[in-house]
């Protein structure tokens, strides 16, 4: 069955510094991959998604992610973080078996230092 691993539970970054959040997946075929962000007390908002084609995907709020099949990774990056980026970030992969829906990682909590 599919699975997603986000190895970092918490990450602290200074405002203006670059950011990389790690995501590794396990999936039997070519995966559809997603990154969502959740602000405190809110639902999840889609940042970006990868289906096929260009392995570097651009998303909203200045985020991008790179799909690396050889490493089974889909890491999220941002060149310069803002205090408003403090949130929980979830990587997800579409469920195998033809059923719609996603399997999520456990999330990475991003803290921004002034």
């Amino acid at each position, binding site marked *: 069955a599919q699975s997603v691993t986000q190895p970092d539970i918490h990450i602290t970054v200074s405002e203006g510094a670059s950011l990389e959040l790690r995501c590794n997946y396990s999936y039997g075929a070519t995966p559809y991959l997603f990154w969502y962000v959740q602000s405190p007390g809110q*639902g*999840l908002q*889609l940042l970006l998604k990868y289906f096929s084609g260009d392995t570097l995907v651009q998303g909203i709020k200045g985020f991008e992610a790179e799909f690396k099949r050889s490493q089974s990774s889909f890491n999220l990056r941002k060149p310069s973080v803002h205090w408003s980026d403090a949130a929980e970030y979830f990587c997800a992969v579409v*469920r195998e078996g033809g059923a*719609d829906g996603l399997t999520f*990682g456990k999330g990475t909590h991003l803290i921004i230092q002034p």
Partner: protein
Amino acid sequence: DVKVTQSSRYLVKRTGEKVFLECVQDMDHENMFWYRQDPGLGLRLIYFSYDVKMKEKGDIPEGYSVSREKKERFSLILESASTNQTSMYLCASSATGSGNTIYFGEGSWLTVV
């Protein structure tokens, strides 16, 4: 914009009560989902539905049931609430097709005492 509305944001229920969590989407989506979110565990799929009156078990269906009588509405039911069901519940919807964007509601915080 797609809107997924969860009518109750905060609920406090007693052990053994029957609990209904309601969700409505306004984009004519075929698929609807109920997830549970717990600290350190991420989101886990409870049930999903791909059509009216159709339902499929997710990863953690025990203790829950669902109802989809109309396309826009998907209800999660806790037949007899227990303290280990205290959690954040997120409803979501999407159009048919793997990889279509899933849109989430703002969540329902349920505390069972």
